């Protein structure tokens, strides 16, 4: 290890390191962030959810959208996999179906950033238990 020689260096180091704790930091106060839940059950994974999640994480970082990504189980929309739920602070959660890389980009750029509607919204038909 090399020595840290000033407060500025320390802060720069923190910036660099912060990434690795990002996941934990964000989950401390998820209500202030965009929460994206990716349905990652067998059907989702089979439909490419994993790859879409990775793509979306990169895109969000590139767009500097503070996001917290979690995986969740089957949401029941197996016909529309991969499905994701997006919760933007101050808005009701929305579920999108048939999400591929393009739609993922659209969701982030249009819905999240500009509150424009995007295709593929699935009407919510259940109650969330973990309030």
């Amino acid at each position: 290890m090399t020595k840290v020689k000033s407060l500025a260096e320390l802060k720069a180091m923190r910036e660099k390191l912060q990434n690795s704790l990002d996941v934990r930091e964000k989950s401390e106060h998820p209500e202030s962030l965009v929460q994206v839940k990716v349905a990652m059950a067998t059907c989702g994974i089979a439909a490419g959810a994993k790859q879409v999640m990775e793509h979306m994480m990169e895109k969000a970082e590139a767009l500097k959208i503070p996001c917290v990504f979690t995986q969740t189980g089957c949401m029941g929309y197996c016909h529309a996999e991969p499905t994701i739920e997006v919760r933007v602070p101050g808005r009701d959660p929305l579920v999108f179906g048939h999400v591929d890389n393009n739609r993922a980009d659209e969701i982030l750029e249009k819905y999240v950033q500009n509150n424009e509607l995007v295709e593929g919204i699935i009407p919510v038909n259940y109650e969330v238990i973990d309030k």
Partner: protein
Amino acid sequence: MAKYKLHVLVCGGTGCKSSNSLQIIENFKSLIAKNNLQDDVQVIKTGCFGFCEQGPIVKIMPDNTFYTRVKPEDVERIVNEHLIKGRKVPDLLYTNPENKEHVSDSKHMDFYKKQIRIALRNCGFIDPENIDECISRGGYEALGKCLSEMTPEQVIAEMKASGLRGRGGAGFPTGLKWELCAKNKADQKYVICNADEGDPGAFMDRSILEGDPNSVIEAMAICGYAIGATKGLIYIRAEYPLAIDRLKIAIRQAREYGLLGEDILGSGFNFDIELRYGAGAFVCGEETALIHSMEGMRGEPTLKPPFPAVSGYMGKPSNVNNVETFANVPVIITKGAEWFNKIGTEKSKGTKVFALAGQINNVGLIEVPMGITLREIIYEIGGGIKGGRKFKAVQTGGPSGGCLTEKHLDTPIDYESLMAAGSMMGSGGMVVMDETSCMVAIAKFYLEFTCEESCGKCTPCRVGNKRMCEILDKITKGNGTMKDLEDLRNLAAVIKDTALCGLGQTSPNPVLSTMDNFMDEYIEHVQDKKCRAGVCKSLMSYVIDKEVCIGCGKCAKGCPADAITKTEYIAPGHKLPSMVINSEKCIKCGACISGCKFGAISVK
């Protein structure tokens, strides 16, 4: 650097470690590797989460899933279900004791809801053996700020303005302590961290050192800068091997980064830390005794003045603060005194860590703002009394504190209010008692501890506490007199008035506070020879209900004292004569009760 999608935090504190949490970590690592998830999932061994009642704890981020009482064999299910399929494993989730519902998210657990974590900010969140994780949470930036933007006087002014008071028990204003030490000119000064945690049941200092050792190291360096010391010493009891290991790792890493040693952060300020091990004598928590012990002398207090700020370790000005006090310091510097000042009550600022124990549902370590009420702690965070029994008292402040009752439940907790109620903050032990606790026995328990741990230097503590203990023993054995109660009070008053150090002066508190609040129980023991809680064995008698007893004789066979014999009485409907206990022979072991299937034996 690989970016993990999921972080699995496993508690590596002493409590969870002893429940096999290291095996849990091993299992996670091997199963994650087996499922090829090593790039997605990171496993971190953290410090204590505080919820020790439910340990070992596994927390999964970012969805804040809080798994409790995890066994090594549960790991496979967590990996398969949660990590791979994203489904939480319901039966491992925390269950709300009130409505029996699973709580999937720690944000929604009552245990954490009312807590504000300052001293424990990184405990259970970072890997304490990796300084990078600490730095990424802003670690050492407070030190950097002090060194590059503040004068020592400003640091002290900030500490004074924050209103932080010593968390070791007495509540002396920290900033003022620093200022007193800073004023004394000397070629060498010392910053001493008191990690000789000794109150029965208190383990916050250990948890901080195990979970976030860097916070203490950083604070000691800040203190060194403020008072003009270049040497730090941590006096830690040798019975804390894990905390010692983590401290050693942290000190080594901090040195490698140049956060300890010479010319820290290019400021020209030098500071380094050494560890000193204590043998675990309670009295060495008293600062003068601690210093003598570090010097290789007998660990016993000496009179103040001179205060350590004038003549401490090796006769040099020294500043002694406890672990939790130090852990607050970096946050105060970073966020400012004003921010800290807003938390707490008028005279007691910030938060306090309590070790919650006793007859309470959620045993563990909590950090709450000063001014919270006992009711909130016991019923909300603590989840109420075990088995739905009735609350009787809560003992705060360990052997130096006292028992608080129902009438104190809504008092906002701070140094002054606890003192006024006949107890004290102490280091933050909080033992909750219900109707199964005998208050005379409780007083005796704490006094026995003090007797054991007294250094024996002054008469009131050496002989006085021994005599008080003997009187209490007499009372619990049913041989007490009303004069004994009088003697007890006089002795307690004189010991409080004359003992040399804080240990002795506060040792009568458990007796005085129980006498104040539960005099009826004392009188019952003395006059009626009765212990209502059924704790004092000598005052109990085992009785067989001759109408219920079927005369099977199992109790007689199991009695180690041959105290049970047959009578000639056969109860209506029974075929064999009932049994009877000879109270002269009975040793009150209780073997008969646990052996009787018919519930014929009871304790009176």
